[in-house]
């Protein structure tokens, strides 16, 4: 009945809630923080139990002579192969070649995906014009492009880099376009009130707003880049980690194959980690759930 009475009551209830919220962490912060910190260390360790256990078990079985380990080499053999390749300088050479291909294809794919995604996200006319075609192209399994790329661009670097760039392009394009289209209309209106030009609107509102989604898109693009470099190198290369895979298969050296796979895993994770570290300062403003744990 009395709307003013209710407002006053709500005010009281809110300040009560605030008091509860502010007083709670003071009492509970120590034990929660400590156990969470422990959880952060313990959980990965639990995750390691299974693979490490299996590896140790396999090593023991092979050493006891219960299995030859010829097709599935034990960890020590893989490690030695890895070391031998590294000492001969072979590993570094192949890693460099592969990383160079990924870097080139990733660079081209990110730039193209960002530009096309930004334009189609901002202008609905361009989107209606381009998006159906791009979606149709995306539906084609990218490996299917390999023969035609080889016909068009030859067997050497150009076809490989084109394939990687195509793989990187689509997640970046989709991520940028989707993120721009879902930018909060309310923030765009703030830009309109301050009479931003189209360019200033993109630079001062849209790009910062899509940055978190953009970085995720770039990371999935990078992941696909590593996938596609394997495909490209499997289909004909004289250098690169993919070549090591094929070489190991043809010469019957499973340890070399596994060593190359391990190298892929390490540099794939490493480059993703570099992207995360490099972009972290750009996202300090984010109000993320995960941040609450840090403080």
């Amino acid at each position: 009945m009395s709307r003013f009475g209710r407002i006053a009551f709500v005010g009281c209830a809110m300040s009560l809630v605030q008091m509860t919220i502010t007083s709670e962490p003071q009492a509970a912060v120590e034990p929660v923080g400590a156990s969470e910190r422990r959880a952060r260390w313990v959980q990965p360790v639990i995750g390691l139990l299974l693979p490490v256990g299996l590896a140790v078990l396999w090593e023991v079985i092979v050493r006891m002579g219960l299995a030859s380990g010829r097709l599935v080499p034990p960890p020590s053999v893989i490690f030695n192969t890895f070391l031998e390749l590294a000492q001969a300088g072979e590993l570094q050479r192949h890693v460099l070649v592969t990383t160079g291909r990924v870097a080139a294809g990733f660079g081209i794919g990110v730039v193209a995906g960002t530009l096309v995604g930004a334009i189609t996200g901002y202008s609905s006319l361009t989107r209606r014009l381009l998006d159906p075609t791009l979606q149709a192209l995306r539906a084609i399994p990218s490996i299917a492009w390999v023969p035609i790329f080889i016909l068009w661009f030859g067997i050497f670097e150009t076809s490989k880099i084109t394939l990687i760039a195509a793989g990187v392009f689509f997640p970046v394009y989709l991520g940028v376009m989707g993120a721009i289209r879902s930018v909060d209309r309310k923030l765009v209106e703030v830009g309109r009130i301050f009479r931003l030009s189209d360019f200033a609107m993109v630079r001062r509102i849209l790009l910062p707003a899509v940055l978190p989604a953009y970085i995720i898109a770039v990371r999935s693009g990078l992941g696909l880049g590593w996938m596609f470099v394997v495909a490209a190198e499997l289909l004909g290369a004289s250098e690169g980690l993919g070549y090591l895979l094929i070489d190991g298969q043809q010469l019957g050296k499973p340890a070399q194959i596994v060593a190359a796979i391990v190298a892929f895993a390490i540099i794939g994770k490493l480059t993703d980690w570099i992207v995360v570290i490099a972009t972290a300062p750009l996202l300090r403003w984010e109000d993320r759930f995960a941040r609450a744990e840090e403080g």
Partner: protein
Amino acid sequence: MLSLDRVGKTYPNGVRALDGVTLDVELGEIVAVVGGSGCGKSTLLRAVSGLDRPTQGSVKLDGDTILEPHEQIGVIFQEPRLLPWLSVADNVGFGLADRPKEERDARVANALARVGLSEKAGVWPRELSGGQAQRVAIARALVTRPRVLLLDEPFSALDAFTRADLQDQLLGLWADQKPTLIHVTHDVDEAIVLGDRVIVMRPRPGRVADEIEIDLPRPRDRQSAAFDFAKRRVLAALDRSLDRTVSVDERETKTAAGQAMWW
């Protein structure tokens, strides 16, 4: 002078949100707009701000027809709408990007001091309370010194105490620059604390139902009898705008009077 001439708005879905709203607002005047939800208050402000165009009539600021956002017209929304990736100071300076850095810094510092948030200049918006965030939004709107400021229920998400505090702060800021204010609210007390006059709107389609001069000196005492009387007039006008016949239906009159007496 800001003048609205028979402004009407029919949304593409056929909803007639506004119909024939005519209103002249003098420079420096504070006009409070009240009315139930859905009677076109936001639609009215969006037309005046240039964010949306009216489908009939026109809005003019000193003879210029408003079709796009205008540099002399600022807006404060119900939500603070701070940009989360900018610090508080950079949010306040958002509309001053074309000014030299020294001038911008000085004006931002001054605006933040005026809303009592100097010590928050470097923090992220997520670290502010609701009331603080809305004060930053007020500073951001006023720092460009607009001649007209439009406020769409800016305090409705705040608790009653913060709200009264911000009403007083807003009046203090208004006294500095004397911009024209059009302040939409559904809080009758707020309308009377702030307004030189109160426009009462009625829904379906949104029209001006009544207009009540508030001829009280500022600062206004929320407890005074004159305040109470003004409030009773506005509540009665609101009742009439909803086609509740005040004079015949005694129960409704009592409701309005009862609300007015509560304070």
